[in-house]
């Protein structure tokens, strides 16, 4: 039985902007994080895609191809609202719903109540499409893929964009695979394609017919080969929740003429943001990693492993500033990541435990104030004047899609 339904919003951010501003409908629209000449397009409407606009293009390049392209700046609160709406619609069908990113999610109907479990899958898919139109907006479209595991359901959702609904069953799988390239399969990039080519696998059908030993011993050289063997046969191997391994943020500096002090203020802003995220998950970090990208595209980084796990803004900021001092300048992008996370503070007390406890209490009080009255109502003086360093679109993780994005 096909119990997995994959929902993918079409050109998510661009479609939401077109839903939000009716005057943009039917026009080529590109979404960027900032309206600057070098801004990178992170989403494009179908009208823009038809004119050759691709995600990742710089604004100047895109303007040269499509002079009447309309640029809109991202507004995360809208996307989070649609994400939450979609999630609630999906949860009406099963308790087991996983949002894979801000614009896609999976319903596992194996956990659904009997009156839903017995319904026709395509009918459920069609109903979700209709509910998106009536409960979010009449311009919203989504792709629905139905199959027996996430991999095949995602593939089904990608077959007919936009607004498609496809089902992959053992009966039609070979016919569908015969029309695809290896890189059309989710999770197969050009590197994996080269590894498959090396063992004479050039098509999805040959991949499907490959024996498990070949995939384990020659292609993946690990247990991943076995997972691919099962994935291709509709067996679920991707239904797991991974722990948070790191918490981080990055920021593209608005000018190359910022002083070192101004850049440091932005580092501190990022530190306070990652500190808030860390504490919101009740975590502590042993590792601090600061990195920069220069205008010459040179990547520089410094990291340290601390003896004591930290989670206060003061500790994170101090550590990040020290690391940042050793990095070259001027820089184009700055980032900070906390890693080696743990759920509890260190059991071993230190000589300075009183000061540490006091700093943690101050931090908890500041978090409460900011939660009640809005983000950054209270922050360090050193990061003053950096209010424009706002959180942008969280592409990968949906862990922090809450009130923190406004």
């Amino acid at each position: 039985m096909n119990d997995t339904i994959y929902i993918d919003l079409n050109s998510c951010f661009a479609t939401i902007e077109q839903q939000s501003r009716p005057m943009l409908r039917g026009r080529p629209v590109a979404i960027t994080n900032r309206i600057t000449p070098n801004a990178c397009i992170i989403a494009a409407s179908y009208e823009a895609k038809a004119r050759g606009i691709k995600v990742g293009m710089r604004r100047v390049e895109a303007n040269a191809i499509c002079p009447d392209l309309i640029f809109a700046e991202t507004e995360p609160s809208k996307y989070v609202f649609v994400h939450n709406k979609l999630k609630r619609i999906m949860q009406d069908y099963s308790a087991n719903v996983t949002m894979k990113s801000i614009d896609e999610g999976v319903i596992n109907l194996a956990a659904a109540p009997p009156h839903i479990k017995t319904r026709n899958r395509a009918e459920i898919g069609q109903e979700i499409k209709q509910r998106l139109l009536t409960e979010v907006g009449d311009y919203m479209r989504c792709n629905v893929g139905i199959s027996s595991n996430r991999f095949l359901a995602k593939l089904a959702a990608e077959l007919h964009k936009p607004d498609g609904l496809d089902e992959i069953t053992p009966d039609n799988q070979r016919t569908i695979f015969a029309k695809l390239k290896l890189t059309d399969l989710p999770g197969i990039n050009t590197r994996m394609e080269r590894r498959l080519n090396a063992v004479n696998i050039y098509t999805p059908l040959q991949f499907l017919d490959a024996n498990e030993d070949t995939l384990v011993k020659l292609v993946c050289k690990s247990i991943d080969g076995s997972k691919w063997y099962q994935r291709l046969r509709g067996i679920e191997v991707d239904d797991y929740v991974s722990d948070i391994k790191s918490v981080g943020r990055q920021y593209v500096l608005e000018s190359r003429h910022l002083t070192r002090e101004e850049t440091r203020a932005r580092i501190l802003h990022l530190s306070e943001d990652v500190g808030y995220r860390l504490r919101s998950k009740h975590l502590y970090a042993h590792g601090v990693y600061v990195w920069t990208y220069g205008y010459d595209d040179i990547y520089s980084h410094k990291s340290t492993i601390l003896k004591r796990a930290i989670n206060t803004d003061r500790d994170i900021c101090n550590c990040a500033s020290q690391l940042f001092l050793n990095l070259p300048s001027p820089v184009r992008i700055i980032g900070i990541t906390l890693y080696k996370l743990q759920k509890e503070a260190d059991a071993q007390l230190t000589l300075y435990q009183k000061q540490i406890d006091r700093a943690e209490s101050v931090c908890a009080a500041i978090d409460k104030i900011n939660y009640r009255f809005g983000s950054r109502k209270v922050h360090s003086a050193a990061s003053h004047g950096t209010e424009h360093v706002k959180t942008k679109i969280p592409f990968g993780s949906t862990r922090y899609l809450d009130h923190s994005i406004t």
Partner: protein
Amino acid sequence: MNQNSLQTNLHEPIDVDASFSRSILGHCRPIAFRTQSGREVQIAQVGLVHPKYDGLKTIYAFDITDGATDYRITLDTDSLNWYLEFEGDHYE
């Protein structure tokens, strides 16, 4: 054309005529608004209605159009006041 750069953040108090219904969208629907200067705008279409949060305060943003210009009006759920926030491009 730059959609956003021509927008200005106005935050101007406005009067709004709205209807309230039991629709599936579960919100009020603005019909027209008047600015302080007396200009009246008839709302032709409501695009997206979404909440924005300032701490625990919820502000509802209504993205609307009169058929020529996009606007954003907001309802502050603490004070129940309406504001005109943005007035977008003319697309002609």
